[in-house]
């Protein structure tokens, strides 16, 4: 009897030890996304991408389970701060993916830095995120300068623009993108007739369109705002006959912010809209086509993945790649990320520079919205 008891005890101890080992072989990923508020569509699309990647990885890589915990940070610096503190204390992540909105991403960066936890960002553009000397911040999304510089080049070169009106939301992201366009455009001899900012609570853009119409000939209108506001803005500019979609001469230009489907929502007002895209579901690369196929199989044949789906999907692929290369905790994930060069994902190739910013923009290209609201890829060299 005693022998049996001892054997059972030994078995229990072995099981506990095995369980502890199994627990050790986990890479914990905190995902902070806006699930409520005006930016909540980021969260929904982001989660779709993460879930798909996890499903394909079958939950793990290299013997490590990738455990994800989703949290709502609402695009809000305050909520993101509170959420990340709670996640750090309770979930103890090795890496945090997020946030989408620049203001919220900036708010959590110093907290993660202090706790030596890697932040992988896939949706914020503000320059400050990777220009503040953080060692644990990495970003695959092109920053404001990387997005605005090609717009300036195309505006001056291909569109022969002499005048511009810059439209942007009043956020760190909007301001940085606007500055990223304004400075080089003016330095190259272009004239910025007005820089018009607006809060995220602005709904009616008729007065703004009227003002722009009163400024005389506007050649280009770079726009940096969330999808919903950009739709309304494009429609108001068309009604005021400022842009091509309304019979005007101006060309509205957009950044990578806008997800696939914007053109259909804006309708005829979107005709002639020129923008850069990082993820193009029509791209021939095998990785992109495999992703589109898998996405449709999981979420419906009538759905087309957006860049938000793709970026979120890529973040998990990058974590998996780091683990595959031997990473098992925050410090080793940081080390592996620092060594990344030409790691292929759906949104291009990832090579982080010393500041943690992806420097490879090889797949970023321009598209123009056609009369039937489809995209036409433009062969413009940046």
């Amino acid at each position, binding site marked *: 009897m005693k022998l049996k008891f001892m054997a059972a005890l030994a078995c229990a101890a072995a099981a506990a030890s095995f369980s502890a080992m199994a627990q050790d072989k986990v890479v914990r990923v905190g995902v902070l996304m806006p699930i409520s508020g*005006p930016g909540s569509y980021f969260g929904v699309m982001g989660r779709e991408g993460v879930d798909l990647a996890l499903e394909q990885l079958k939950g793990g890589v290299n013997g490590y389970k990738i455990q994800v915990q989703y949290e709502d940070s609402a695009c809000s610096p305050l909520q993101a701060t509170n959420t990340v503190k709670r996640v750090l204390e309770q979930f103890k992540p090795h890496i945090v993916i997020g946030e989408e909105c620049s203001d919220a991403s900036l708010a959590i960066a110093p907290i993660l830095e202090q706790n030596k936890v890697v932040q992988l960002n896939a949706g914020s553009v503000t320059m400050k995120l990777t220009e503040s000397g953080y060692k644990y911040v990495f970003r695959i999304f092109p920053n404001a300068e990387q997005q605005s510089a090609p717009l300036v080049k195309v505006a001056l070169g291909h569109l022969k623009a002499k005048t511009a009106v810059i439209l942007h939301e009043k956020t760190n992201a909007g301001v940085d993108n606007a500055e990223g366009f304004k400075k080089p455009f003016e330095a190259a001899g272009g004239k910025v007739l007005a820089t*018009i900012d607006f*809060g995220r*609570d602005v709904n009616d853009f008729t007065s*703004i369109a*009227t003002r722009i119409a009163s400024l005389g000939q506007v050649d280009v209108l770079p726009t940096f705002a969330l999808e*919903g506001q950009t739709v309304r803005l494009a*429609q108001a500019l068309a*009604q*005021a006959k400022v842009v091509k979609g309304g019979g005007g001469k101006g060309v509205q230009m957009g950044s990578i912010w806008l997800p696939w489907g914007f053109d259909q929502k804006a309708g005829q007002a979107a005709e002639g809209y020129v923008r850069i895209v990082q993820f193009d579901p029509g791209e021939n690369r095998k990785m992109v086509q495999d992703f589109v196929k898998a996405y449709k199989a999981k979420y419906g044949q009538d759905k087309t993945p957006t860049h938000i789906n793709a970026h979120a999907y890529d973040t998990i692929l990058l974590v998996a790649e780091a683990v595959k290369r031997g990473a098992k905790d925050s410090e080793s994930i940081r080390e592996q990320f620092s060594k990344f060069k030409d790691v292929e994902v759906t949104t291009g190739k990832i090579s982080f520079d010393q500041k943690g910013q992806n420097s490879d923009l090889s797949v970023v290209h321009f598209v123009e919205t056609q009369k039937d609201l489809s995209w036409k890829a433009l062969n413009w060299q940046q």
Partner: protein
Amino acid sequence: MSDLAALIAQQSINGVYLGCLYVMVALGLTLIYGVLNQINFAHADFVTVGAFTAFFAATRLGTKMLGLPDAAGYLLSLFFALGIGALLGLAINAAVFAPLRERGDELRPLIATIGVSVLLENAQLALFGPIPYQFDSPFARETIRFGRIFFTGQSVLVVVVSALAIGALYAFMRFSFWGKALRAVAQDRETAGLMGINPGLLIGLTIVIASALAGMAGALLGPVIVLTPFAGASVVVKAFAIVIIGGFGNVQGTIIAGILVGIIEAFTVQYLGSGLIDLVVFVLLLAMLVVRPTGLIAERKEENV
């Protein structure tokens, strides 16, 4: 017409249109305050419910199921939004507000409006998801031009429907028995009760009318705003400011303040910058509170509604 005159005319039209949208949202708020002395924090969510009701009534019921043309489908959706708003107001009053009022506590119904707001917002989030809906009114696609002046069919519709709603509300309050009874309850609930009027019923009627107006406001706003479960919140803060500027509980003051704020916003965009809209409106609100705390139209309370 000179450039300047055309510009002033255009921005004035933009301002009146925007002002009418604000008035439609603010009317329900001011009506409830005028009769109940209560702020309804759930008002924004009634507006959002109206917008979603109109969206589904226009796109699914009107055009797909009934085979109506787009314009008829949208017009039908206005009535649906009005009706659903009224029914929602009736249900929430019966289930939440009325029982709390019967306990004689002023604070609990106020807090309950916050609870109702969170409930409605999250219910809509669960039902409709957070991705913005594209709600296009066929009237918004029609641009009417007189020389350099332009406006959409939607802006004409907003102004006309607002005028009709205001007219109907005025006629109801001034000439109908129920309207007179409602004003009596606003003046003195206790005395009105002694005269054989059922204050509970009249308060319920007020909430139903305010919710119906909010629903219709949502239907008009739907094609203007970015339609998500949080859409109403983007206009209701401005509506609160308008109600205070106009004189809390004063319908006439709310109408004037709404149109004034719309026009001020349009000219702020033109001459100061759109980033300063909130600054200008809320400086106006603070100035009004300091200089004329009773609002633009300082009438005796009994004449408010």
